[in-house]
């Protein structure tokens, strides 16, 4: 039978900004041939709030709450790069106890973020609601700990240069330990829920594969990069805070497809639990905040501080002119690079695979657009 050769009429269609599967307000202009994607042009900026400009008018102590609003799923991870950069420029020494509390909260935050990824991902695959709410349920337990600790539900504003805003509340350690002990079983449950499912496997294995070299060239980072078989994890490679004192392994997977990305995140949560348990065991007593002034003046200079965010490398490039406000604060968002990398995968895919691939990248548009 001769194949149809004449040029097909292509359909140009907006996917987003108001679409159930674009995780906020990503807009991709698709050119479709039937359901096959011929061209995919992402348009960003629908959540652009000018964070980098706003912070230039703020003093150093006022900035963390703005950063909380960037990646609204892993907020504390956003704050860290910035406060560590300020500490480095100012030469502040953070008390040990604060470092440990930071690590505990950061890892919990990472787990929360991965839970908040897992749910929507299965939702985008069409498992409507079920796993989504399981993810959110577990997130909620951790969220309560955060609320009790920081006093806020989303925009914690808990890290500050020199340590933490205030000490952890009564019973924090017990509750954190209880949560950490509970989590491995929960993660097993999640894996059991989806991994044994043939349709889930059919929809994820081999979908949207990215090889390590391309991912690296595109500046991808985090679980997205590690799923492509490149075990780069800043917690291990360039240890910051007290991460060099913990025993954990960098999770990576080969294949670089949606399933690998899922698997890496699941494994990573287990490692996070390990870190939390170790940190809880080693946590010393003492103050949680170094002596600093409110209107801190940083010496003239610049620093690029990067930390391993839940989504990848989160960088804060602070340029100081010696005043009380940053001269320039550039925020390197992991979502941006990962999204950029994933966008080269899209042409040639079919629509459902495109949705699965974009969902597997774990973008948060607040972080991408800033």
């Amino acid at each position, binding site marked *: 039978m001769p194949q149809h050769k004449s040029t097909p009429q292509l359909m140009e269609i907006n996917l987003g900004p108001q679409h159930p*599967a674009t995780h906020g307000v990503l807009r991709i202009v698709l050119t479709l041939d039937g359901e096959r994607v011929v061209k995919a042009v992402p348009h960003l900026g629908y959540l652009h709030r000018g964070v980098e400009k706003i912070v230039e008018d703020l003093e150093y102590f006022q900035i963390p709450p703005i950063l909380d609003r960037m990646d609204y799923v892993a907020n504390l991870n956003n704050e860290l790069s910035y406060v560590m950069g300020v500490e480095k420029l100012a030469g502040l020494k953070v008390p040990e106890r604060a470092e440990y509390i930071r690590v505990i909260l950061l890892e919990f935050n990472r787990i929360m973020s991965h839970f908040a990824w897992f749910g929507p991902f299965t939702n985008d695959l069409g498992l409507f*609601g079920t796993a989504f709410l*399981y993810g959110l349920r577990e997130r909620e337990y951790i969220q309560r700990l955060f609320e009790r600790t920081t006093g806020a539900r989303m925009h914690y504003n808990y890290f500050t240069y020199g340590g933490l805003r205030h000490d952890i509340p009564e019973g924090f350690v017990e509750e954190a330990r209880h949560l950490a002990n509970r989590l491995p079983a929960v993660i097993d449950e999640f894996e059991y829920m989806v991994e044994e*499912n043939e349709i889930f496997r*059919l929809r994820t294995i081999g979908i949207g594969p990215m090889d390590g070299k391309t991912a690296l060239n595109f500046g991808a980072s985090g679980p997205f990069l590690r799923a492509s078989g490149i075990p780069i994890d800043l917690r291990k490679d360039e240890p910051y805070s007290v991460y060099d004192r913990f025993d954990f392994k960098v999770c990576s997977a080969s294949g670089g497809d949606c399933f690998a990305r899922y698997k890496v995140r699941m494994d990573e949560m287990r490692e996070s639990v390990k870190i939390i348990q170790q940190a809880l065991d080693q946590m010393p007593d003492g103050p949680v905040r170094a002596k600093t002034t409110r209107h801190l003046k940083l010496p003239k200079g610049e620093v690029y501080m990067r930390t391993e965010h839940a989504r990848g490398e989160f960088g804060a490039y602070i340029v100081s002119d010696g005043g009380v406000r940053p001269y320039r604060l550039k925020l390197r968002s992991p979502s941006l690079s990962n999204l950029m990398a994933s966008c080269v995968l899209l042409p040639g895919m079919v629509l459902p695979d495109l949705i699965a691939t974009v969902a597997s990248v774990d973008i948060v548009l607040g972080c991408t657009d800033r």
Partner: protein
Amino acid sequence: MAIARPFLIALALVIFVLSNIVFFMWAEFKISGRVADRLGPMETGRFHGWAQPLADILKFLNKEDIIPANADKLIFRVAPFVGFIPVVMVLAAIPYTNKIFVRDFDIAVFFVIALSSFTFVSMVMGGWASGNKYSLLGAFRAAGMLLSYELPLGLAIAGVVMLSATLSLIGIVQHQTVWNIVLQPIGFLVFMVAMQAELQRSPFDLAVAESELVAGYSVEYSGMRYAMFQLGEFFGLWALASMAVLLFLGGWHGPYLPGIVWFFIKFYGIFLFLAFSRVSVPRVRPDQLMDLGWKILLPSALVNIVITATLIVLVPHYQLPLAISEFAILIGALYLMRRVLK
């Protein structure tokens, strides 16, 4: 009176089915809620949100009805009726016991299959007429599914027809001294899968595909017109779940309890299966769906027919050999498929 009688029966039946549908909706809310580890509706009507479906219907009635400017207005208006009327017509052919039925059609099987596929036609019409690209993609998918799942559904039933040598649903049930699920496990499985596809239930809800096509063919439909599509789907569920009970599960046969009770026990068993499968599996991709339909279900249904026909003709007491060989093939095939998919 004789002229008015069918109309009254039809009205009574529609209202009866509708009240059941209200219960379906509530049950689905609660089941999908409990499966997802939450309560589902709890407020409306005080007791476990029993009035939630009614509130939903009221909401549909109150919604503004918008027909997009560049829609094909006539087809846009007609499409919900094309989906709704045939499934109401199907009700005329479905018996509930050997005493409670509307009419005993001698080609009832044919009739039900033919009319229940109108759902797809309405989707294609509605999706195309909306003048929207998402609905158009949904319509493509609906058309593809219509083509691919009509065949396995029909062929799966052919085996049953061969066993009972009649096309009347009452005749088929009366013939089932042994339930057909025992004699026709392959046919039953194919029927159940094809049925889910016909009903647009997850994992085959591709024409709607919330996370991909927003709402598929029904993107532009709002208010009561949209609700009519939903009603049509629920009526279709009623028809096909009844068919599953009548063809494979022995209809009203069962010990101790009256036939009508047995019928509805089995019917709600099928409904529970559908409700649970909807919330426990992700959606398949269109090409996977087509592959399943053409490359697995269709050949299996043909194999089923060949085995059934051969054994009926060649073996005098064919029931036991038929059951054994069908189950053997089924288990072997499922094992092989699992091996391949792993």
